[in-house]
């Protein structure tokens, strides 16, 4: 047909150049945040009187590592310049969209951290001078249960089962870790107890969500209430008599194990490789979950039942069986996360010992967009903020209660400002029922 002409690529280029509104909004937000960071850093630089601040590379000042001097003003001004460059790049819309962009954000973030911490530790009143300490060891420790809980969340939700009950799994894991370790006089048996408890809770989640089709949001809340009640009830049934109590709730704690060689690496070695077995398990878990989900046959099936269970069914995959497996597998990590609160840190179980951290792990799952690595990053961010808060409680520049809000405020700003609507696995929370 001669009168028919295909639309050519040239015609497509005639389009008016229209920039997406959302893209513009995103840029504006970025510029605002960067400008605020820059302004704050300049403010810090101008308000610091005494340029001398002390720091150590270790977690605390010891005889072996005496505090060193850090000139505050140069650090502050360099930070401010880095942030200013970031602002200009953002304003010119010149921040690349790939990994280089991430590097820019990381640099600005690091500059803000450096400037802020120097400012916080400067001009200390009183005779004792606190020193800036390495934030990594504390961050890793605190993040450990959060990462494990978030991995559990990822496993469940990738398979299409909403898991709000991470907090409940933590509590049960923590309680039974303590009981198992006490009974066996062995902290590692505590980990076994924790795993069993985590998987047990997961089984409850699975049976009610998959067999009885209970609304999974409802279910999660109820399971948390159940775990809270049950652990508190059982705890109060353990007699105070030390002769009996030692068999139930006086567990040995996990020792820190320095990994030869790796733990000698300067700055990070001590932080990453002189930790408890639980922390090492956490590292392994992140790799395992990410690998299993994205590189194995089972992982492919898990993701398929979470995205489109009917499609999975039509190629012969047993949807509910795969979901059961994923939920139970996730329970392993959630239970281990719970173990942190007893054998992994303080020892004995106490009422509501995980203090709502399961909710933070849940938030990390969503902020990390249901990806194990993203969720891990979000969990580490929380660990970092909490650690910062506890470190800064020794200096009096900011009231610690206000500082205590910052991780949560930061999350709200991040979620509202930059994450926005997220795309969960398409069938998350949908029970699969054959008609």
């Amino acid at each position, binding site marked *: 047909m001669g009168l028919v002409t295909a639309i050519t690529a040239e015609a497509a280029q005639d389009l008016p150049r229209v920039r997406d509104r959302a893209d513009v909004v995103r840029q504006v937000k970025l510029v605002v945040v960067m400008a605020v960071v820059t302004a704050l850093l300049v403010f810090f630089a101008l308000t610091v009187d005494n340029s001398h601040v002390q720091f150590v590379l270790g977690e605390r000042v010891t005889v072996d590592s005496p505090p060193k001097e850090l000139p505050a003003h140069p650090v502050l001004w360099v930070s401010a310049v880095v942030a200013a460059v970031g602002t200009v790049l953002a304003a010119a819309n010149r921040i690349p969209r790939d990994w280089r962009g991430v590097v820019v954000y990381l640099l600005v973030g690091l500059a803000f951290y450096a400037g802020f911490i120097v400012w916080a530790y400067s001009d200390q009143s009183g005779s004792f001078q606190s020193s800036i300490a390495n934030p990594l060891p504390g961050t890793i420790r605190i993040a450990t249960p959060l990462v494990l809980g978030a991995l559990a969340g990822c496993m469940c939700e990738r398979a299409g089962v*909403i898991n*709000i009950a991470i907090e409940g799994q933590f509590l049960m894991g923590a309680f039974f870790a303590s009981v198992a370790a006490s009974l066996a006089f062995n902290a590692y048996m505590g980990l076994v107890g924790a795993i069993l408890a985590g998987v047990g809770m997961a089984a409850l989640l699975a049976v*009610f969500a998959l067999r*009885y*089709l*209970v*609304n*999974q*949001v*409802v*279910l999660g*809340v*109820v*399971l*948390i*209430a*159940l775990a*809270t*009640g*049950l652990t*508190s*009830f*059982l705890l*109060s*049934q353990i*007699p105070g008599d030390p002769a009996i109590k030692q068999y139930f709730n006086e567990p040995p704690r996990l020792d820190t194990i320095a990994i030869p060689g790796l733990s000698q690496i300067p700055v990070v070695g001590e932080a990453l490789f002189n930790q408890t077995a639980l922390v090492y398990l956490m590292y392994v878990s992140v790799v395992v979950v990410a690998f299993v989900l994205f590189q194995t046959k089972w992982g492919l099936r898990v993701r398929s039942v979470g995205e*489109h269970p009917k*499609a999975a069914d039509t190629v012969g995959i047993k949807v509910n069986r795969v979901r059961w497996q994923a939920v139970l597998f996730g329970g392993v990590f959630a239970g281990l996360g719970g173990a942190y609160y007893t054998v992994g840190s303080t020892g004995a179980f106490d009422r509501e010992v995980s203090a*709502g951290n399961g*909710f*933070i792990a*849940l*938030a990390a799952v*969503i*902020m990390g967009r249901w990806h194990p690595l993203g969720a891990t990053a979000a969990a580490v961010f929380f660990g970092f903020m909490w650690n910062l808060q506890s470190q800064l409680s020794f200096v009096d520049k900011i*009231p610690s*209660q*206000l500082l*205590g*809000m910052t*991780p*949560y*405020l930061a*999350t*709200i700003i991040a*979620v*509202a*400002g930059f*994450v*926005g*609507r*997220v795309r*969960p696995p*398409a069938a*998350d*929370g*949908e*029970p699969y*029922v054959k*008609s």
Partner: protein
Amino acid sequence: MTDKPEPDAAEPDAETHARAESVGQGADLRSPVTWLPTVKVTAAAILLALVVGALLIVVSDREVIEAAGYFFDYPWDFFKFAGEAIWESYRALVLGAVGSGAALSQTLERAAPLICAGLGVSLAFRAGMFNIGAQGQLIIGAVCAGFVGFTFDLPIGLHLLLALVAGVAGGALWGAIAGYLKAQTGAHEVITTIMLNYVASSTLLYLLTKDAFQRPGSDNPRSLPVDDSATFPMLFGFHSGVLVAIAVAVVAWWLLERTTLGFEMRAVGANADAARTAGMSVRKVYTLTMLIAGGLAGLAAVQQILGHHDSLTANVAGSLGFDAITVALLGRATPLGTVLAGLLFGALASGGIQMQASEAATPVELTQVLQALIVLFVAAPALVRGVLRMKESGGGATVMAKGWGS
């Protein structure tokens, strides 16, 4: 693409009825919140929860455990002690809840804040939002109401009114933040309300270090008790805030079922896309709903702090905000259901104290386990029916938040 809902097939007219049946079941499965089909199942769920609770009492009672040690020699002891422990515990539970005028008053006073906060959670559910933030809204409400209550010196009546308004406004504001953020940016309310809970408790802790909130000459994180003029007057042995809670439940029902705003809330909750297409402002509904939900949580805080000359302390909200979620769930997110669930939980709470004081010394935490089990069993009618061999019966559907979709 592939996730388009299947276009519903047209059925010949004579079969419309049959189809209605099968689709009804289908809808049941698609939104499994259609629990509480009958009062019967609820009663059965409570019974089942009590049975599980009895097992817990038995396995953790010292005498029973000892008797189990020589079970094969003298089994009668085991059953005797087990029976005694269960009987003592549950008798105390019932007596503590409804056994006397004082117990009843106690039950009502404990139920009132649960009802108010539960209504807040319920309303949010109906508009498709999962409000985990009742706790934070309560805390801010308590701060505002308490501050007005113990700081100012105002005439009776006016003082109470002002403190009440301050508490409701504080909670409303806190709730509206989450609603506004969801409306404007799509930030999921589960995350923002969790975070706002923490921010609220940090705020409370911070304020309690300030002179304006501490008792003169004291460094304890504890305020003065609220003035007489700002407390609820007593009526029939319980404070009149209880009546406010009932009145509010009626208003909530009217709002939901009889007003244009309620129509919008329910439409947005059931199908936000269709609501938007029909010209409703989904954003407005999200913000307003959370404003109202927060206000109701604030009212719960008012009940708590203006009920009995209470001081503002770090623990002013207890676990009320989370219990409110369970109350709303048990009440199937309807106002009447929420009131009934609130009364039940209030009874369990006030009975639990007596249970702990009883001879069996069953810990009060058992009531928390019972609460969770009741909701769990009510949510899984198939399980309850299976265990108790009851017949299947249909049930109405209430729409609630089901997943992360925003």
